[in-house]
């Protein structure tokens, strides 16, 4: 497959997955799971920026962030801001991150999710919105638990220009 074809197919998958992740974000969960809703969009972004950082980086993060902001009615730019910081970190470290064993990588993802929720917490605090601590801690836990599955699943959907061994 030529490089151009590969890029297009990746773009299509990313577009569809982006839509699905936003749908998953809006779908209501039963009450006992409501605080544990993972940040689907962020997990997708982390995957993309670790594995295909050339094609998906800041621009993707910004657009998805604005979409999440509008669909959730948060301050415009709140999620975009947090997404950008996370993607900056993960795409800077992508060469190390993608070679880590799964367990170690999951631990790093947990830290990244904590950082992300701290940023949201901070922006909420500055703009005077208070919320229970569970709405910040829950997604970190569920995101960490789901990361190995998500990264394996997404790995089958995208085509990498360089194999792991070569980079």
């Amino acid at each position: 497959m030529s490089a151009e074809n590969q890029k297009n197919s990746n773009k299509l998958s990313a577009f569809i997955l982006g839509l699905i992740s936003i749908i998953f974000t809006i779908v209501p969960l039963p009450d006992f799971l409501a605080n544990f809703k993972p940040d689907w969009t962020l997990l997708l972004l982390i995957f993309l920026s670790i594995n295909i950082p050339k094609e998906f980086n800041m621009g993707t993060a910004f657009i998805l962030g604005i979409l999440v902001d509008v669909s959730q009615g948060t301050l415009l730019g709140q999620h975009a801001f947090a997404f950008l910081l996370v993607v900056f970190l993960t795409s800077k470290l992508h060469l190390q991150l993608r070679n880590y064993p799964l367990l170690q990588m999951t631990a790093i993802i947990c830290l990244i999710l904590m950082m992300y929720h701290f940023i949201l917490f901070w922006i909420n605090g500055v703009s005077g919105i208070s919320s229970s601590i569970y709405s910040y801690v829950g997604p970190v836990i569920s995101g960490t638990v789901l990361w190995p599955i998500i990264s394996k699943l997404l790995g089958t959907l995208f085509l990498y220009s360089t194999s792991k061994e070569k980079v």
Partner: protein
Amino acid sequence: MVVEKNHRPRIPALNTKFIVLILVSFGLLISDQKNNYLSILRNSITIALHPIQATIDFPQRLLYWIDNTFSERNELIKENKILQEERLVNLQALQRFDSLVQENIRLREILNASAKLNDNVQIARIISADINPFRHIIVIDKGTQNNLYNGQVIVDTNGVVGQILQTSFLSSHAILISDTDHALPIEVNRNGLRTIAQGNGSYDRLDIPYIPNNADIRVGDLIVTSGLGGKFPAGYPVALIDKVSRNPSQQFAYVSAKPTASLNQIREVMLIDKQ
């Protein structure tokens, strides 16, 4: 020596892009918090996202429809009977209401006050969508298309639910009275004691923070909207006082109330048009 053609850095211009976009989103954050410049941008994206919300809502609607269509005959008869009885009780109450309205208008004429008892009402459905996890915000299926406006008051059959926060063409976001950022002017129905009720982030409690220790307020008192502030029309039930604890060492009594509307179970709401 081999010189590589088309050599590009691994991630082109990452830093510049990052700095530009982070500044843009920071700018968005500040301008969105301080004022309403961005409502056009937000509205147009909301319209683009509307199909997604409608898709998510569809299965629940379908279930509801199936439930309605295929329910048992005797269940329907039972429901019909209950509704008939309710209607009779309501009619009886309405008989007195009519004469009370007349009396009220007469009294208001004596006082030279303007009488406005009938409000226009529209009914809207809540779209089952999980919005902002940090706040109590719902989406309803009517928007500027149906002449909704920001600040319009929402009630259900039992009491005040909230007010509209943002309208877009096809749908609107509304804030519930239980949101931590929401407060509404109220009065105690029994004696007209005026104060405000604040949401505290849980669906079944409102805080009433500024009640002096010696104020006449009891468990079981109904609180209604006072109409002060001009946003909420007067006289709609809001909550029942369920806890009063007076501590002489504190400046104010601790008072909390339970909203009469079941805020997390409503399916349909009514919008009161004051304009």
